[in-house]
């Protein structure tokens, strides 16, 4: 193919024949905005952002689909093109939650809230796990439009969580089609496509089947290519944008696929395919399981030795010395069993140790069914009494078999029944935590960099063996790094081919990692029919606890819940709160009372889905029981006559100010209620609030209703209008309350805020809810929740609130409901069409 020359923006450009105008422009360094185009995909022409003008051609063709031709004169910039692109962007954003993009407080808010809130449906950037990587957001911010002329048409799709490993929030989807196109490119027949038409068009599988049964192999390419936060890796999503990416390889089977290890603060958050090609694709294990194994909360983190019946944690020296003193006694009756998933360097050192001690070395490869003949032979030998001691690099031996031995050392990363019965347990660093090399079935040697930090005191196996050997006085183990070993490994044989094609089907995956059932540690794998050890079922009495009488999603993520709790209802007062536990084992979480009825014995709450505990609560159906309700807690707000009182509510605070407004109005005050939401479709309880206030004023961050901005803007307007405000009470997120406080401080108007620090018991015992008010330490649970807003140490409050942000992310459930997989649309919960969005 020859080259052609054309003119783009007055610049002469030479490109290969067959390139599109967009490609030609890119080569010439000319940027044309686009979102559906991707370098690894065929032209599609859906987003219509890349329109250009071509001399002699009518209209505005898209540069991504128009082939460049010789002598063409192209304009990529003109006033009309800018208008057209901005309007198209405006249309695109009108179908995508956008209030954060046009919010006047965006920068301040993002400074205070660097991480996204772990909400259910994304209703704005602040609730979107993809915020830091979103191409649409980037394009919108670059375009600089900060006002939308069109209302947001929020579709209120339920977040799809029934499939393993991925969360899909089609409220964010702009139908750029990248996902199904990459699926088609990599796998030939796509598992997903656009289903339905027009307004109802969205991505989905044929006949709404679960992805597990739709031909999807869970390679994750759709997630990795999605420019918005629609398709996400459930495990990785809330960690935010990874800060490092290294080329590495998967060692879970003989294929040894290359992958990118993505890390954040030296923690492995995800593994991804290295390029969008079939050849480079990964299986479900390689894409999703590695990070979950490495980050398993059950990881072994301390050495331990057996004393009597118990295993006692100890330091490394103690454990190594015990092993070093015992092992030399066994020589030929010692067996060393290691997994093939360890690095070549580790296995070289294991082999050297075996050789020096005269022991047998058994290397266990990975397989689909997990019955490796190497292990079978070894177990048979063991039963015959051939060995009296073992070093086991994984879950290869049952507790019974180990008990029959004179001595056993387990070097592993995860607990097992075998490890519990071992004389010495040494915690090992694995996978992305270990530096080394690995040879795959085709003989290629792949580099494995250590990119994440091992948990606790876990060490790489090469180091453990060297230290153990040195303690035994053996020579030839004086290595300072795995790299020093690499050159000695020489030409080790390639592993035996894996007995399946993991990338082609969900039933072809390796079932074990270091002898452990992979599905035991990565539970979503059960959905693929992979074997696992059954979990102990939690049984809770259906008669105990507090019955849920009513539950509905009033606006996306915001649930109204009515609970039978007579003792709380009897004593509740405005401004008080309760602490709920969804189950016996749940976290305790505080919620302000929205309403109560002493005669009925009921209380009402507004619960916003922002993480694990709130999700547990809102997932309970009507008729189910909340395990614990304690309250009423906190100091009630005094209902005194003051004159004109302004109450500001945002998010859950809209519900929380309701009883306060009612009480203050009954006390004879002139009550002005101001509520804010990021967009009009997120406002609720308007009718109820109208009945308890003299005036109801609305503010939205995107200006879709009422005043554009927040409570503070409305408040300042009121004061400027000459309203003599005696008191201002603000309830909402910490940022909103802080902004309110900053607005009222120069005006000298007494302001109260309901602080929301992390709280555990709610009775003043634990001190978790400590806040500083005018330099004095107070407890929000018993001294609050209402405090003088102008005395609050806000920075401290923000930092204390975010103290457990990593744990909060780790706590997000990864399990899938296997029943829901079979009946994907049986019981979804959520509001769907019943949601009162406008």
């Amino acid at each position, binding site marked *: 193919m020859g080259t052609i020359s054309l003119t783009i923006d007055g610049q002469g450009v030479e490109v290969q024949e067959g390139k599109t105008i967009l490609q030609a422009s890119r080569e010439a360094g000319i940027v044309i905005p686009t979102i559906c185009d991707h370098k690894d995909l065929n032209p599609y022409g859906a*987003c219509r952002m890349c329109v250009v003008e071509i001399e002699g051609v009518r209209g505005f063709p898209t540069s991504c689909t*128009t082939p460049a031709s010789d002598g063409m004169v192209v304009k990529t910039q003109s006033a009309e093109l800018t208008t057209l692109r901005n309007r198209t962007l405006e249309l*695109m954003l009108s179908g995508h939650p956008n209030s954060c993009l046009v919010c006047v407080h965006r920068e301040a808010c993002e400074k205070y809230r660097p991480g996204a809130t772990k909400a259910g449906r994304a209703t704005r950037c602040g609730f979107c796990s993809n915020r830091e990587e979103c191409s649409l957001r980037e394009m919108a911010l670059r375009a600089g439009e900060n006002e939308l002329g069109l209302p947001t*048409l929020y579709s209120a799709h339920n977040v799809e969580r029934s499939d393993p490993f991925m969360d899909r929030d089609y409220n964010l989807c702009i*139908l750029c089609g990248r996902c199904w196109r990459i699926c088609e490119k990599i796998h030939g027949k796509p598992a997903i*496509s656009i289903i339905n*038409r*027009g*307004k109802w068009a969205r991505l989905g599988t044929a006949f709404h089947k679960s992805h597990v049964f739709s031909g999807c192999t869970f390679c994750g390419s759709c997630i990795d290519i999605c420019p918005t936060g629609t398709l996400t890796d459930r495990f990785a999503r809330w960690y935010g944008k990874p800060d490092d990416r290294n080329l590495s390889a998967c060692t879970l089977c003989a294929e040894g696929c290359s992958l990118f290890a993505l890390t954040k603060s030296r923690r492995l958050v995800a593994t991804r395919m290295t390029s969008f090609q079939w050849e480079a694709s990964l299986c479900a294990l390689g894409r999703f399981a590695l990070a979950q194994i490495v980050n398993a909360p059950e990881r072994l983190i301390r050495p331990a030795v057996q004393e009597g019946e118990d295993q006692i944690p100890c330091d490394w020296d103690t454990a190594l010395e015990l092993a070093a003193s015992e092992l030399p006694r066994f020589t030929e009756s010692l067996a060393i069993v290691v997994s093939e998933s360890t690095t070549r360097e580790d296995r070289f050192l294991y082999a050297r140790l075996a050789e020096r001690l005269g022991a047998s070395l058994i290397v266990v490869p990975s397989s689909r069914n997990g019955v490796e003949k190497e292990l079978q032979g070894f177990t048979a030998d063991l039963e015959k009494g051939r060995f009296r001691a073992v070093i086991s690099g994984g879950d290869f031996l049952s507790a019974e078999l180990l008990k029959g031995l004179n001595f056993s050392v387990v070097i592993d990363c995860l607990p097992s029944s075998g490890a519990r019965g071992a004389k010495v347990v040494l915690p090992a660093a694995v996978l992305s935590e270990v530096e080394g090399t690995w040879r795959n079935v085709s003989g290629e040697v792949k580099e494995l960099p250590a990119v994440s930090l091992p948990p606790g005191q876990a060490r790489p196996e090469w180091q453990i063996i060297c230290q153990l050997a040195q303690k035994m006085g053996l020579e030839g183990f004086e290595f300072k790094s795995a790299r020093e070993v690499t050159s000695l490994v020489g030409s080790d044989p390639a592993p035996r081919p894996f007995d399946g094609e993991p990338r082609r089907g969900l039933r072809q995956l390796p079932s074990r990692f270091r002898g452990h059932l992979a599905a035991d540690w990565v539970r979503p794998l059960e959905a693929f029919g992979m074997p696992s050890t059954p979990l102990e079922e939690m049984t809770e009495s259906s008669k105990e606890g507090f019955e849920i009488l009513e539950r509905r999603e009033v606006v996306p993520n915001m649930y109204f819940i009515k609970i039978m709790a007579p003792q709380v209802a009897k004593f509740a007062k405005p401004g008080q709160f309760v602490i709920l536990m969804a189950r016996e084992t749940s976290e305790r979480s505080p919620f302000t009372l929205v309403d109560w009825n002493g005669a009925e014995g009921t209380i009402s709450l507004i619960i916003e889905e922002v993480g694990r505990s709130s999700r547990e609560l809102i997932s309970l159906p009507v008729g189910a029981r909340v395990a614990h309700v304690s309250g009423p807690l906190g100091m009630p707000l005094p209902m005194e006559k003051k004159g004109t009182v302004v109450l500001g509510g945002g998010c859950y605070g809209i519900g929380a100010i309701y009883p306060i407004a009612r009480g203050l109005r009954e006390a004879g005050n002139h009550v002005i209620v101001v509520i804010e939401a990021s967009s009009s479709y997120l406002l609720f309880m308007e009718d109820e609030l109208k009945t308890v206030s003299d005036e109801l004023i609305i503010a939205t961050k995107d200006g879709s209703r009422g005043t554009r901005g927040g409570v503070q803007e409305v408040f300042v307007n009121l004061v400027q209008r000459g309203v003599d405000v005696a008191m201002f009470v603000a309830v909402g997120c910490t940022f909103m309350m802080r902004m309110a406080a900053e607005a009222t401080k120069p005006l000298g108007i007494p302001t109260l805020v309901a602080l929301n620090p992390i709280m555990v018991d709610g009775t003043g015992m634990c001190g978790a809810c400590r806040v500083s008010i005018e330099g004095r330490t107070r407890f929000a649970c018993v001294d609050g929740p209402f405090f003088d807003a102008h005395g609050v140490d806000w920075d401290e409050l923000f930092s204390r609130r975010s103290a457990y942000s990593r744990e909060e992310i780790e706590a997000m459930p990864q399990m899938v409901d296997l029943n829901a997989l079979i009946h994907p649309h049986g019981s979804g919960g959520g509001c769907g069409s019943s949601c009162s969005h406008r």
Partner: protein
Amino acid sequence: MSFKKIQEQANLEWEQFTRSKPLRVLIGSATCGRAAGSMEVMQAFEDELNKRSLTAQTGVHEVGCLGMCYAEVLVELTGADGRRVLYEGVGPGFVPTLVESHLVEGNPLLDKAMAVMEGEDLEGVAHFSQLPNIQHQVRVVMRNCGVIDPARVNHYIARGGYSGMHRALSMTPDQVVSEMTASGLRGRGGAGFPTGVKWGFARKSPGDVKYVICNADEGDPGAFMDRSVLEGDPHAVLEGLLIAGYAIGASQGYVYCRAEYPLAIERLEEAIEQMREKGFLGERVMDSSFSFDIKIKKGAGAFVCGEETSLMQSIEGKRGMPRSRPPFPAVSGLFGRPTNINNVETLASVSAIMEKGAQWYQGFGTEKSRGTKTFALAGKINRTGLIEVPMGIPLRTIIEDIGGGVPGGKKFKAVQTGGPSGGCVPAQFMDLPVDYEHLAEVGSIMGSGGMIVIDEESCMVDVARYFLTFTENESCGKCVPCRMGTQHLLKTLTDITEGCATPEQIGTMRKVGDSMKKASLCGLGQTAPNPVLTTLRYFEDEYRAHMEDRKCPAGVCRALITFHIDPDTCTGCMACASACPVDAISGEKKKTHHIDQDLCIRCGSCRQACKFNAVVVN
């Protein structure tokens, strides 16, 4: 068998059809006729003839649609005198009288007779060609509809069918293309691209495998031209496709027809089978070196699949979604091969042109828009149905003469041409010549031929809302301007009809409409705002009345109207009270009635029920 022999055989059969039996009954039984009960009428005829032992002497036949929907079921009777009389509105109960009087006694029933098709004049009954709605029509595409039995290929051949193909085979493909170019035929699917030029592109495009496709995915609400032709004369279309295949060098043709047209598909399947038997299809068509085959692809009814690139995706088994051009189908179409797509009506014209010559065809229409065009007349018009007129005919002739004007003496307000992709042409353009150029001048399009007549009692905002409901539903969702734009337009229109929109939103609608026109990927999105933009252009005051005064001048939008009873005109007849479904009307006999506004649901039943126009809308 030579084509001449085939023709002789066909003529024989046609002769038999027209003359062999002394009595004959023809029943219009396309889908429209069947919906009106033609199958029951046919059964009634058979029963009655059987009872009178007339079966042997009488031929009872199904024919296609004459286009007069308002007069279904249409029955043509030939008595012993050989005079053919067309009856309108025939129900099964009327059949015995008809048989008795006309067939047995030889006395045509004058009050039910619509026209004399052939033979001696009847007193007070016009000759068919002299009917006011027929005399302005020229039937090229519909030449056989309602005349022949569509299930018989010989009828078609006897009426000149397949001689066009026979003639084409005696020419080179290039000559056929030139003939088509010379005829001036323009694509009847809506865009009006010259057919000959289009064929020329596909002919010149390099490639050993090429395809021709007949686009029978008629989807405009209220349009049924293609269906009628396929049901009434399938061979006319298939012959056109055969000729197109020969002209561009294709050996495979497809008919993409929506599954909602089961009768059309049945007719096509029969016709293809007959073509094969006659040697018009398969290896060596008519003993020439040209080989050709036709497959039918059933569409699932997505409007966007009428767009050529979506249609091809659908044939390929993919989701029907348009793709950008270039490459044009003539270069890379179905399965990546050079492809030519023509609409049903175009192909039915092609077979006629090849039969009679380009010169003949040029005799109809205007200089830039040659030939005839079919229109589906619907809405507020007396004679709804299918018509075929020469291009350039004044709109007034269509509405007033052919259509018989607006019913009930109401005022004509506008006509929507081109369905949801078109625009409205207001009454002020009554004398507009109907052709591609003039329609475009006033902001509308020819489209595929839907014409929906709107009278003074129709609200233009509501009309626009109706079409946007359709396009919002039918947008494939691929490109942003169309998917989101239709939603915004519909939402705003709905807000207007519900009285909760502000005048500034007119600007927003114009802005959104403009973006859609300029930035949408395919014709659906580019034309979807037309109903809004043209109604805004000609009826902005009506929009403003909704927004500024919260009033619907036409009295349609329920949220903005109230019904009242005028005490001066009310006679107290109780008709409105008994028609009211919610018992909101009170009053005694001979006394003025009263509507309880709290109970009233503004359904308009009372207004319809009142014979004295005493129910007024505010």
